[in-house]
């Protein structure tokens, strides 16, 4: 930084052809996401835990317990359902990790002041929010598919030997269930991202997102069971983690038919989950435009 260099290089060499584009904003958000260590660790944790948990469940056979009759051989459908649930067992951790990543993508910028640089470059703001959400969704989808299908690819060949279960890759329901599990991870990340954009604080955003995914289902379910109030039990049924779980259920059908209690098949569950995201995202986008950065 010498004074003599000033005259030489204030930058008149720059061509003025470049301008703000959505493609450029997407590229910027990809650079931002993949130049932080937290992203790297989140991805490593998701993949390692997904495979690790799947392997433990697939290879360890619980010893027979006294008084419990040995189960008979499973039907073909039941075998596929078991195989899917083993391959997606790690998703319970993955969803938390991706919820944290989703919130951090936006709250990290508010916490550090980076958001002001972002908005100075993208003053209409909404394109930046959409690009962030898209980049997060693509990343979560790839991580979700790789971790779930990777886990399945590793444990499915082991299952005939360890549990006398014969997974069938040609069974469409198996594929759809595994893809459904990955899509749930994408939507959890997006819902958490939207909450982060509304709350704008890392601790608060993560707490609220995990509260919605982790704490609320248990709490509402408990109140529902204790009060036997149908409407409270129905609230528990439409919470993100409840409908999200339906996405990876092998049959994809409504589970129970009890009078007054709602139940959703795979498609309905997916749409409800999408609605959670859309409502929160629109609220985040409206607030983003109105609030001072």
């Amino acid at each position: 930084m010498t004074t003599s260099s000033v005259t030489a290089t204030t930058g008149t060499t720059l061509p003025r052809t470049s301008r703000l584009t959505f493609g450029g904003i997407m590229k910027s958000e990809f650079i931002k996401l993949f130049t932080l260590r937290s992203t790297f660790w989140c991805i490593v944790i998701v993949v390692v835990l997904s495979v690790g948990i799947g392997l433990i469940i697939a290879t360890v056979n619980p010893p027979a317990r006294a008084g419990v009759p040995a189960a008979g051989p499973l039907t073909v459908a039941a075998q596929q359902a078991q195989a899917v649930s083993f391959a997606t067992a790690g998703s319970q951790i993955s969803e938390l990790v991706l919820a944290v990543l989703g919130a951090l993508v936006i709250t990290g910028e508010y916490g550090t002041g980076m958001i002001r640089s972002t908005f100075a470059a993208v003053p209409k703001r909404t394109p930046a929010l959409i690009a962030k959400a898209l980049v997060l969704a693509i990343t979560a989808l790839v991580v979700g598919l790789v971790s779930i299908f990777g886990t399945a690819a590793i444990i499915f060949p082991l299952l005939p030997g360890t549990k006398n279960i014969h997974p069938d890759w040609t069974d469409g329901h198996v594929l759809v269930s595994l893809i459904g599990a990955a899509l749930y991870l994408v939507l959890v990340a997006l819902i958490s991202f939207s909450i982060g954009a509304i709350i704008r604080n890392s601790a608060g955003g993560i707490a609220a997102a995990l509260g919605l995914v982790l704490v609320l289902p248990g709490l509402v379910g408990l109140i529902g069971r204790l009060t036997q109030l149908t409407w409270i039990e129905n609230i528990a049924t439409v919470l993100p983690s409840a409908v999200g779980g339906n996405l990876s259920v092998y049959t994809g059908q409504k589970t129970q038919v009890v009078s007054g209690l709602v139940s959703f098949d795979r498609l309905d569950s997916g749409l409800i989950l999408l609605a959670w995201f859309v409502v929160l995202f629109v609220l985040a986008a409206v607030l983003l435009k109105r609030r001072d950065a």
Partner: protein
Amino acid sequence: MIEAIGLTKRYGEKTAVDGINFQVEPGRVTGFLGPNGAGKSTTMRMIVGLDRPTSGSVTLNGKKYADLKAPLHEVGVLLDAKAVHTGRSAYNHLRALAATHGISRKRVDEVIALTGLESVARKRVGGFSLGMGQRLGMASALLGDPSILILDEPVNGLDPEGVIWVRTLARHMASQGRTVFLSSHLMSEMAQTADQIIVLGRGRVIADAPVGDIIALAAGNAVRVRTPDADRFSKELIGTDVTVKVTEPDLIVVNGLPAARIGELAASSRVVLHELTPLAGSLEDAYLALTEDDVEYHASDFDDDATPAPTTATEPVQ
């Protein structure tokens, strides 16, 4: 060219910026001066659309910031050095900003070299000193080779070499016909850098004039007189339009009389003078005079007599 019309920002009951009008012209350096809390940063944030004005508007080359097609090329902004994610390296921060506008990596390397960040560019910003952070902020502002440069307290935390660099850069950019708008609470800095100065106090423009005029405001005609007969001489001098302030037993500051006249009076009254010094006005004095009543947070007034208080009027200069 930056133009603010009736620009106002209220936070609840508190008015941070109170209906200000000003123009920042291209081809010169315009200083934005004011005590802490005067509303400088709020004004600058409104210019680049980070804060929404309660009323009024501000345009850049006739357009609102949000309507610019290529904001980074039109406006370079340094708002505060902390507008960076601490977990990312300086290089990646600039690369991410550049990507939004399709600015090349070559240009990123250029601004890194320009701001002297080569040695730390790959390190995470979290470990940067204030000065390094400031250099990175300057690099971000220069990235798009903008025609308007807005710098909030750019010399904050810089070493003397960096201060000179910012000053030279600002002057150079202005000489190329660009608009340069920089804020500071350091009056001495402004005197050396700015052509035009806008003084802000409690959210209002209290002066908007060439730097020479602002200094002239404070020049007044104070004269420092050292004499063993300070008491007697003071009584003789005091009259209409003449004020005398005794700052030390043998030292007085006279306002309202030229030094020559004071010398003549001393001779005729047979008063021995040890010193007779006309006090040159500084931007510092002008600034204090202008903002005297407009400082939001007063330090407790200690040692009040040590500095001769200029008695210049505080009406706005237009």
